[in-house]
Structure formats: structure tokens, C-alpha cells
């Protein structure tokens, strides 16, 4: 274990990965992918809007991790550092590709489409659209907390904000989603009538 690493990096048991990644071990990156790849793809897909761009973002994030792992000082846990890189990569890629801020999944041949939960379809689809319309900060917190199940302390590290900001952003996000869902239901009810 490297003495230069702070406890935050070693607390989540990633320290072996960090050391191996620093040495450029492909096996360590493979292990990192096995451990975090699924979650990374999911986050990227929700931010980029489609699996193709999501996979590109994950690949680019791994390259950035490889290039920068030597500068990782352990001020946060390794996994939150990895997710921070992923989210920043998605933001950069979206900016470069001039994608719409609204998440619009676009199926691409050759890449398997994300598995959709069988239940609650109408609400899930509506929610997906509405989340895509949220302000980026609110969207990131909502996706990380409600969708991916991160704790506020982890979100605070990933997004480099305070825990209080994370909680506030989540409340704001849910309130906006609730209001929009309510409006959409009122419109649907009046249309049906």
C-alpha cells in the first residue's frame, strides 16, 4: 500500500486496484471494469441518452483514468474519483457532440439495448423524459441517488459539492419532477375527458 494515499482512498478496498493501475496493469483495469463497468455504463447512458455514446464515454473515461491515475492523491475514494471522471467525460462529450440536453434514447444496430423493467412502464418513460429536462446539477444528483443508489456523502465527493447541497439538489429535483408529473397527469385527464 502506498504511503502517499490518504485513508479515503483505502477505505473502500480499492487501494490494491489503485496501486496496480498506477503500475499500468491491464488486469487491474479489467478488475476495475468488472467492478464498476455496469454502473458506469448506466450512468453514462442516462447522461448521454443512448448506449453507443455511453460506451464511448466509458471507454474515454478509462483512458483518462489510465492517464491520470498517477496523479490520484487519495483525497477521495478511488471509486468516487472514477465516477467523477466518468461524469466529466460525459459532460465534455455532450458539449463536443452538441447533443440535446433532453435525453432521447436512440437504438443503434450492433449494440444491445438496455433491459427495461417490465413493471411501471408509463411512469418510468415519463420520468425518464422529465429527468432529461432537469437542470444538469439536479439531474446528476437525482440519477446518482435515486437511480444508482449512491449515498449523499459519495455524491458530494463525486460532484465535489457538500452533502447539504446534494440533499437540497435532490429535494429540488424531486419537487420539480413531482410538479411536472402532476401537470402532465392533469393534461392527460383533461384530454381523456
Amino acid at each position, binding site marked *: 500500500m502506498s504511503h502517499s494515499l490518504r485513508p479515503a482512498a483505502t477505505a473502500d478496498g480499492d487501494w490494491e486496484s489503485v496501486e496496480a493501475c498506477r503500475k*499500468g496493469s*491491464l488486469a487491474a*483495469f*479489467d478488475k476495475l*471494469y468488472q467492478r464498476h*463497468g*455496469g454502473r458506469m*455504463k*448506466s450512468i453514462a*447512458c*442516462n447522461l448521454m441518452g443512448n*448506449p453507443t455514446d*455511453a*460506451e464511448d464515454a*466509458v*471507454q474515454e473515461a*478509462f*483512458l483518462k483514468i*489510465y*492517464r491520470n491515475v498517477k496523479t490520484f492523491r487519495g483525497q477521495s475514494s478511488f471509486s468516487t474519483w472514477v465516477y467523477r471522471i466518468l461524469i466529466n467525460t460525459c459532460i465534455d462529450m455532450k458539449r463536443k457532440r452538441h447533443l440535446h440536453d433532453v435525453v432521447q434514447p436512440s437504438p443503434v444496430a450492433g*449494440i*444491445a*439495448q*438496455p*433491459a*427495461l*423493467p417490465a*413493471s*411501471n412502464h408509463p*411512469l*418510468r418513460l415519463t*420520468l*425518464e423524459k422529465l*429527468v432529461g429536462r432537469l437542470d444538469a446539477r439536479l439531474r446528476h444528483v*437525482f*440519477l446518482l441517488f*435515486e*437511480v*444508482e*443508489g449512491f449515498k449523499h456523502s459519495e455524491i458530494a465527493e463525486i460532484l465535489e459539492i457538500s452533502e447539504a447541497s446534494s440533499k437540497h439538489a435532490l429535494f429540488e429535483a*424531486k419537487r420539480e*419532477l*413531482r410538479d411536472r*408529473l*402532476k401537470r402532465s397527469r392533469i393534461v392527460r385527464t383533461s384530454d381523456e375527458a
Partner: protein
Amino acid sequence: MEHVRECPDCSEDWSLWQEISTAAPGLRKSWESSELWPRIEQSLIEETRHADRIVRGQRKPQPIWRQWQALAVCLALLLVSAVASWIVLQRSGPAVDNEPGLQDERRLLTEQALTEIEETQAAYLRSIEKLSTLAAPRIDQPKSALLGIYREKLLLIDSAIEELRANIELNRFNAHLRNELLSIYREKQQTLEEVVKDEAHEN
């Protein structure tokens, strides 16, 4: 919570709030992507090779012929710039006079001026010869003090003429000497004319 159960609006809000949290995990995406890790692995391998190449390029000492090559290129550039500067200075400076065409032109002009001067000199000499023939009897044997002075003056003029001619032989294109000679010829002509006029008055 009591109010939430009784108030329809608040009840709906609470219900929606709960629904959002329940539905949110449904936004999690998962799909098979057997190609993704091989792609990432390949890009990492390429990145490693690229980094190695950079490190090798930084560490590898330059071969000696490369250093000499660089030195030779520097010297060649220095030489070319020096030659170019010299050419520019030659073209823009007074050394332009050294060009053969201009030299010929200047020489022709000088020759032309010299010819004109020599023609004038010849005219003076012809005039002086005629006047000398007329004045010779009086100058050779002066009968008055004034004629004696004229004789002395003419002897001085002749010696000056001899001296200038000797200098002109050394530098035929010296315009100053030529002008001096012409003025002395003119002086001799005037002096001889005065001698001849005095003879006419005496008669």
C-alpha cells in the same frame, strides 16, 4: 401525516413523491456489451505503447551523425544568410558603380568630355600660334619695359603650361588639370593679344 391523509392535494403530492422514488431505480440501464472491455483494453494497450514511445524518444540520445547533421544545417543556413546579406548590400550600396555596364558608360562620358576639352585646347593652340607669330618680333627683342614684363609673363605661362602638360600625361582624365591648362591657354592668348594690340597702338 394526519393532514396528508385528509388533504387531497397533499395526499396526491405525497403519493407522487413516493412514486418517483419507486420508479427511479427503473431508469437504471443494463445491457450486454461483450465488445466494450476488449475495446477499452485495446485503447489502453495503444496508450501504453504511445507513452512508451514518448519516453523512449525523450531518453534516447541523438546519434552522432544526427548532431553533425544539425550542425551542418546550421552552418549552411548561416552561410546562405551571409551571402544573401552581402548580395543585398552590394545591390543597395554605392558599390553599384563597379558594375561593368555603368563603368563603360562613365568611361564613354569621360572620353567624350576629354575630346571636347582637347578640341578647345587645339583651338586655343591654333590661336596662340597665330598670335605668337605676330608677337614674336616684339617679345624676342622687347623695346620697352612693358614688353619686357609681357615677355616675363609669357615665359612664366609657358613654364606653367609645361608643368601642367607633364601632370596631364600622368592622368589624362583629370578634369581639374585640364581646366587649369585651358585657363592658362586663355591667359596666354589674352597676353599675346595685348602685345599685338600694343604694337598696333604704337604704329
